[in-house]
């Protein structure tokens, strides 16, 4: 019983983590058809930024709430800068090229940013421990849940709801939906696709940085944290359906829960359960759970 409960809650927490790192990626892919490897760098920059700024904040002994707010602000600032630089400075040059070539451009950007991190913050690791303490704990029988984890799940949920609401009910969201559905059509409707791209990419970057910022308190912020995240996010997005926010949400839940189950019941398979799930989904629904395959017009 307790195990079952543990599986569900652990799954939720891991799913929240996955969704936070995947949502930006899937948004960018949906709108721009770019599989953005540099997303890992956004995550890493977000983590470093938060670890330093928020760390300083807490050391001042100022109220915790502000610290959490600062996390989000840092993430947004970093996303804004990195997003603009990459999109305006680099991606703009390769729009319309082979999809894979664009992927490789983001891969190159990722390689460079990895070392930029090293040049800015040095090779040593940073820790942002205060928020976990500040968030407290909730006891459920033998199981102690971290308040911070609960916060993460809530944040992920809010993001998911917020995103789907924004896509449906705001003017910008509708524009995006049109672009996602059919770029040519969107252009024909006189939508400024270039602007949509820039803004989407910046938002995606912000979300990636946010993922890093909110994970920073739980991990040691050190070189190479981006690499792991990329392939995880890819898996989630591929499972949910490239470009579908709802899909990323379900994909994250699916992976999170199956991993939690594996850890509790069958630790041997934990290492590749994610990829097993991914392979299965792709085999039975090539286009992922949440996107329809484009019908071929002839």
């Amino acid at each position, binding site marked *: 019983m307790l195990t079952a409960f543990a599986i569900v809650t652990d799954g939720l927490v891991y799913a929240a983590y996955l969704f936070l790192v995947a949502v930006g990626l899937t948004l960018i892919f949906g709108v721009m058809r770019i599989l953005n490897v540099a997303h890992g760098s956004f995550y890493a920059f977000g983590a470093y930024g938060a670890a330093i700024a928020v760390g300083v904040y807490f050391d001042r002994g100022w109220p915790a709430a502000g610290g959490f707010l600062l996390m989000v602000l840092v993430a947004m600032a970093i996303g804004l800068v990195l997003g603009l630089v990459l999109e305006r400075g680099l991606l703009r040059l390769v729009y319309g090229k082979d999809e894979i*070539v664009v992927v490789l451009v983001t891969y*190159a950007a990722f390689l460079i940013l990895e070392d930029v991190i090293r040049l800015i913050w040095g090779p040593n690791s940073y820790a942002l421990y205060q928020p976990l303490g500040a968030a407290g704990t909730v006891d459920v029988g033998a199981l102690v849940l971290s308040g911070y984890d609960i916060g993460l799940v809530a944040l992920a949920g809010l993001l998911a709801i917020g995103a789907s609401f924004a896509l449906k009910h705001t003017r910008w969201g509708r524009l995006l939906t049109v672009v996602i559905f059919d770029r040519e059509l969107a252009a024909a409707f006189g939508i400024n696709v270039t602007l949509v791209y820039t803004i989407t990419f910046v938002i995606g970057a912000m979300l990636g940085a946010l993922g890093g910022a909110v994970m920073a308190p739980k991990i040691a912020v050190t070189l190479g944290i981006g690499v792991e995240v990329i392939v995880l996010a890819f898996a989630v997005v591929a499972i949910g359906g490239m470009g579908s926010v709802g899909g990323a949400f379900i994909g994250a839940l699916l992976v999170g829960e199956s991993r939690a189950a594996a850890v509790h019941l069958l630790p041997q398979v934990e290492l590749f359960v994610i990829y097993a799930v991914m392979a299965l989904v792709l085999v039975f629904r090539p286009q992922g759970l949440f996107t329809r395959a484009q019908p071929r017009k002839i």
Partner: protein
Amino acid sequence: MARRSIVFGLLAFVIVAAMAPALPTWLVSLATVALANALVVLGLIILWRAGLVPFGQALFYAIGAYAVALITRYTGMRDALILIAAGAVLSCLAAILAGFLLARYREIFFSMLSLAMSMILYGVLVKTETLGSTDGFGVEPPTYFGYAPQGHMRLLALFWLALAFCAASALLISLYFRSVAGSLAVPIRDSEIRLEFLGVSVNRLIHLNLVVAGTLAGIGGALVALSIEHVDPNMSYWTTSGGFVFVTILAGAGSVAAAFVGSFAFEFLKSIAYDILPGTWQIFLGTALLITILFLPEGIGSLYGRLRRRKPQSMGAS
């Protein structure tokens, strides 16, 4: 034209083989690895021509390598030719099996599925502690028809063998590119429907390409295993596949030659980067990749083509 280029190519291989003894040993071993990787890249070029980019080609690369390592370890068989043949056969079989699934996919879905497959192999290898888990295990130096070279000769022998395999593959693949099936790669990207209505099974065609590419990757893996005398699960990790894609883009899908030019260029770049920027060599590689994509969109391989102006070549000739 075609015949001439093949003669030239083979001549090139002969000359490189002849000058090998003059090269310093570190360069010989570096070149052996470069040749082995070039075979994997050659396979990726075959697929890329048809618009397919596997993020999991390391699957077949690792199978080839582990085949060699396991056979030497458990049977004591050490003959290079037999070992490489075994690696080729096993990766070929793996590619035939994987192909039944992969051949049905296109674009990013193809890439992701192949990624998933290679990562599952990675997981399995890491879990098998009898094979040293992530540490991997060593491979005995090979013999050649019972002849066991020593010292410098050991490197040269393997280098020549690798060269021979590369020459053979280069020849066969450029013939394949000139064949009907081989020249349908671009048409696959343009209109699968037309191909189907010309009576071609696109999936089978792609399956064939996958098997060829997989086998080449297997041979490459086998050669690397013999060359560095060690195998480990990272050979199947997604970053390894990423590296091969990196080289493919660097090389460009222009031709068979591109694979070799690109692979050598890459090893060369890396060796320099490690040497002059030990702490920040990734910036170096990343920038190199960017420059290639932005200023040589058809890859380093296209440089030669640019140098001499040509009237439009007919499709598929390589």
